[in-house]
């Protein structure tokens, strides 16, 4: 069964607020010391979080919440690392040097939320066309009639 890494986390990171994210142990980390905490989580022998299972973001309208779901295949435990970003200039260090799976996740989050990941080898819009404006998964984004305007503006309609 899945063990919970609570004891080790509190011992190594005593100052970080510990919490729960969907019955998984979660720690909240500030934006600027996120990279140091993640390298420690990656390299510390007793933690050994070697797999970034998922990287996602939630638009809480007041701020952007970015969630890293880490897993250790050897220790068999999971951890959620949460950070809050203000909407003005969302920037985060790229985790590609630590976990290779971060490359595709970060491209998707950049495309959907507009969070720029510094140091990403190939940061571009993954899903939307290159010349798309706006970030679809933001709460402020209105999704109606977007498709028809795009077709009209790109001369794709049949009678154009």
């Amino acid at each position: 069964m899945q063990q919970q890494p609570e004891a080790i986390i509190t011992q190594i990171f005593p100052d970080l607020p510990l919490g729960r994210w969907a019955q998984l142990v979660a720690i909240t980390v500030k934006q600027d010391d996120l990279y140091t905490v993640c390298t420690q989580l990656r390299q510390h022998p007793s933690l050994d979080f070697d797999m970034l299972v998922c990287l996602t973001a939630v638009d809480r309208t007041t701020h952007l919440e970015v969630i890293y779901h880490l897993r250790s295949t050897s220790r068999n435990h999971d951890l959620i690392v949460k950070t809050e970003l203000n909407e003005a200039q969302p920037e985060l260090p790229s985790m590609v040097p630590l976990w290779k799976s971060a490359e595709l996740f970060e491209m998707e989050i950049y495309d959907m939320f507009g969070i720029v990941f510094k140091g990403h080898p190939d940061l571009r819009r993954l899903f939307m066309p290159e010349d798309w404006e706006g970030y679809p998964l933001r709460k402020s984004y209105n999704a109606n009639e977007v498709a028809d305007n795009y077709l009209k503006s790109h001369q794709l309609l049949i009678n154009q």
Partner: protein
Amino acid sequence: MENIIGSQIIQSSDDEFIINVGPQHPSTHGVLHLQLKLDGEKIVDLKPFLGYIHRGIEKMSESLNYKQFIYLTSRMDYLSAHINNQACCLAIEKAIQAEVPERARVIRTLMAELTRLASHQLWWGSTGLDMGAVSPFFYAFREREMILEIFEETCGSRLTMNYCVPGGVMNDIHPDFVRKVKQIIKQFRDNLHEYDELLTNNPIFQSRTIGVGYLSREEAISLACTGPVARASGISCDVRKKEPYDAYDRVTFDEIITTEGDCFARYKVRLEEMKQSMNIIEQLIDNIPAGEYRTKIKGIIKPPAGEYYQRVETARGELGIYLVSDGTNKPYRIKFRTPNFSNLGALKPMSLGGKIGDLVAIMASLDLIIPDIDR
């Protein structure tokens, strides 16, 4: 001109050219667009372009209520459509603490294993097709059509079955469901030797897959690969074993793990998984508990505000659902962590340096479903 791949810099000679293994291509099984930089037949660089089938399911789910968005997920990984719906129903049941009767749990697990069988059969047919052997395609669809007949009898539709409902299953199983499933399992076990004769012991197939597309264990972990792709590289990541859901804690089956990590290992893992699925079905088919097939959830589903996480094992890997609800009848934010999205990341390290023909073999062994990547 220089291009940087990972850490080493490769001085590219001038006669390199870039071709598109593009959206419309017989071997991409969907609309995956790869841009290959080639030096003759050798692949120097590979860049995926996605989004050709991005329908924005996550944004759509934010404006559909809890009973509606479930059935969008069967359009994501349409070969394990039932398992996707099962995952959403489990997440919702966990959110509203709904109690699911035993009969529904067993029926759901049976249907999930039948879906896995049908999905692996289609993969087996299209793997043969990619390697130039056309007859496996027709052999594979023979059993698959019989399984789809069972789905159609019980749920009304063949592919996107919409059979799971929060609280159980849509309706009870068809009266001769048990007889037909037993008949299929018996027939498929007799025909399984044909699968080996056609592809497994085929020297051409072996020479095209053995040693091709090697994925080491560390690289598979770092790329967050799951499912048969990871199990072929030696990672034990079967969610049915790690976090048993529905009736998986009641059955005994073994998780197939090999360590070679090449295309043939992934092929063998999926063939063995088909046997394990039949094993599970045989254990469950005889003792489906009587009783209710669903608990009626009256009214609008409004889970309490908070976050919920549920993961299941689809035919291609671990599907994780991160559900954030704010107490209203529509999910505030829902994220599908789909297996194909991270398995696609493994395509580049495996195919660099190889030939174009090997790229087709590797893509066939990865068994990618593109709408599962783009959502």
